[in-house]
């Protein structure tokens, strides 16, 4: 005993080590790997039917092998609240749900009919869903969407992550994440944009999948209630959900049952998005409308401008396609005679990508930097038209996703406050009253 006391006195850390050894070592020895007790969820979908919330999880399930391969299973559970649905999902698979690796959250349009802020808030707070997680909406139920994506992943090399990454970077020019949703939600104008992916069939430019049997409610041969996947079976009552419950999928789902193999279901990334106001869906925004807004975003590039039936000294009835290599927007906010005026000076650095129907001057028509006065005029007109159309749409929907109010508030604070007071306006109504002046200048690259 004396020896032990002496050795502890000499090296007190020995005691600490013994303490750790006695206290934690046994539990460490028997502790399983965290990934074995947690279900790693990479995508989460939220739906709502009449009474219940339905949570769908795309979960990584391990399969013993010596190589890298990701195999996912779609699991869904429903309950009156999201937390209960998560608890049910945990019970169902016998693992804790870990949302730390979740990169995508999908909400159905149906769910967007009500404020989704509280639902997402739960996920963020309790289930540790990263705020950087991409948030998108879909026309079908999120469960159907994830099942479709799972099939797509099996059949092709295209995966959801890469698709969304491209969309955010080159179509929306904006990341639509949970945080960006909240940022709009908590802003004075209470508006934000949400990415949108559609599953549909017909003559559209999408990525088809051959095997749609496992996609509940959309399956070409299975019909609504006879979904085939193991995971789908486990989702219990939700399998009986009719495809009619969805908005956009109503026709597509119904038609798909009788469709031929050539008329496959497709995931369509057409660049459209949703306008969200007060946490609810306000309107669909088409690709063209989005493009109109993106002209005011200086970080965009790569847009293509097409001039049909173009004639000048070089071309005759030609089709010219220009690509915007770089864009620069110099904006100015000011009050002119008490009216808010937004002036955007857009500088487009463009090059001619494709031309057919040239006259004889081949040398000139092959010039990438070809910008004649006619070209200049037409492009300017086209850009302005697109911008005006988009702004009109935003004004109609009362969605200030351009943050006009904040821009004016930041630069002309007193006048903006005064303007709102005198006109008895709310910040969200400010956009309607802004006068836009757009100047487009073209530069050859």
């Amino acid at each position, binding site marked *: 005993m004396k020896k032990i006391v002496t050795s502890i006195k000499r090296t007190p850390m020995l005691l600490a080590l013994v303490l750790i050894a006695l*206290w934690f070592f046994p539990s460490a020895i028997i502790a399983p790997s965290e990934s074995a*007790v947690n279900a790693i969820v990479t995508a989460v979908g939220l739906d709502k039917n009449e009474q219940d919330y339905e949570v769908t999880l795309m979960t990584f399930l391990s399969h013993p092998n010596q190589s890298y391969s990701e195999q996912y299973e779609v699991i869904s559970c429903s309950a009156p609240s999201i937390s209960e649905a998560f608890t049910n999902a945990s019970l169902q698979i016998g693992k804790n749900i870990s949302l730390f690796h979740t990169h995508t959250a999908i909400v159905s349009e149906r769910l967007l009919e009500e404020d989704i802020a509280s639902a997402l808030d739960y996920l963020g707070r309790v289930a*540790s869903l990263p*705020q950087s997680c991409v948030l998108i909406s879909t026309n079908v139920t999120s469960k159907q969407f994830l099942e479709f994506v799972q099939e797509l992943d099996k059949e092709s090399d295209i995966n959801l*992550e890469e698709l969304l*990454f491209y969309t955010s970077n080159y179509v929306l020019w904006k990341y639509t994440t949970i945080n960006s949703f909240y940022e709009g939600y908590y802003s004075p104008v209470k508006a934000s944009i949400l990415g949108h992916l559609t599953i549909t069939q017909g003559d559209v430019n999408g990525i088809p999948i051959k095997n749609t049997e496992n996609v509940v409610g959309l399956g070409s041969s299975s019909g609504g209630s006879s979904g085939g996947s193991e995971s789908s079976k486990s989702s219990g009552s939700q399998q009986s959900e009719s495809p009619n419950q969805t908005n956009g999928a109503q026709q597509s789902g119904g038609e798909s049952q009788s469709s031929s193999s050539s008329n496959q279901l497709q995931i369509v990334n057409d660049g459209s998005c949703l306008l969200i106001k007060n946490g609810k869906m306000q309107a669909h925004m088409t690709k063209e409308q989005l493009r109109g807004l993106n002209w005011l975003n200086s970080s965009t590039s790569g847009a293509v401008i097409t001039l049909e039936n173009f004639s000048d000294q070089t071309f005759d009835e030609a089709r010219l396609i220009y690509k915007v290599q770089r864009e620069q927007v110099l904006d100015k906010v000011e009050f002119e005679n008490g009216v808010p005026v937004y002036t955007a000076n857009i500088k487009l650095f463009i090059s001619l990508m494709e031309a057919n129907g040239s006259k004889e001057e081949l040398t000139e028509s092959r010039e990438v930097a070809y910008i004649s006065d006619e070209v200049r005029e037409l492009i300017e007109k086209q850009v302005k038209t697109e911008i005006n159309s988009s702004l009109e749409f935003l004004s109609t929907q009362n969605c200030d996703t351009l943050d006009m109010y904040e821009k004016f508030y930041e630069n002309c604070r007193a006048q903006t406050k005064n303007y709102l007071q005198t006109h008895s306006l709310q910040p969200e109504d400010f956009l309607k009253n802004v006068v836009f002046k757009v100047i487009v200048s073209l530069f050859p690259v």
Partner: protein
Amino acid sequence: MKTISSRQTAVIAGILLFANKILVLPSLLYEHAKADSVFILAILLLAEFALLLIFFRLKRAYPKSSFYQIISQKMGVFAAKIIYFLIILYIFYKILLVYNISYVYFRVQVYLDASFYIFLLVFLLVCNSCVMRGLRPLARCAEFFFFFIIACVVFCLLLSIANFNKFPIFFDTAYSDFFLGGFKYLFCFGDVLLLFLLMHKIELDKKGERQVVRYLLVVSALIVILYIMFFSIFNHTSFVHKNALSDIITFSYRFTDLGRLDMVAIVTVMFLSLFQISIALYVFCECFTQIFPPLGKVYGLITFDLLFVGLTLISTLDYLQLTQLGTLVMPYFAIVLQYLLPLVCLFFTLGGRHEKNRN
């Protein structure tokens, strides 16, 4: 007596300056002063520099004396003991706060199902052993890791540039909210006070003073940049994000095979919190031995451990409750101990009847 060099003093001051500021505070301040929290931060950081100048003056006037000796000589032993008792309480609260903030942070970010005792054990063991080794080894260790810590913070800030959204709207807070915000969270500042309490163990010359100021300027700049980046990235959702240093990295939607790069921030906070608690605990023990001279450092440690373990096990306070509780009482402690006491000390140096002149 084993003293620490001016560089080590600068490192200790730099590490202390990070305390309580880089995780929860930006979010808490935002609730009061929105983006103008940056100005609250800047003002209170300037106050730290003012305190530092007072410290230099005091150190020059009393190069060999301890802070306790100065105040007991000028105010009487009884008053000195009461002041030191208050300081002990204040430091204890600060340690509790740093521990709780770090605990919640680690729990949320990296330890999902870990036992609560892991945190308690690691913090107590490491900090106790550091204190037992003495100030010099502790300062040397801090010196060893300081550039690593700074590099990690810079790395986090550089990564966050990719997530930069837009500059927040400044000067948009009412004066009352601005000052209330600043007042409420005064206790998250003023860590230079600990240098006063260690002044007899610090070797400082003119060059050394400049070095301390230089180091603190770098750290202050990093903290200010962190706040600006934080508000620029999160804008209206700033109040939701309670882990500033991590969140500015993980905010971004990036597909990367590197995984979560906030591990850098997590390791940085681990180092910072362990150092901050160790230094504060060392000062706690120093103060304890001044109040109870016959009892040594070991008794101070035992007292702290018992109090700390007891409070942590019995109370169910989390850091938010602790902060809210702190906002009621601690600002007054902060005003008296952090700002008034050094000012009084500045007055002592004005008379000319100080140690240096006597010598």
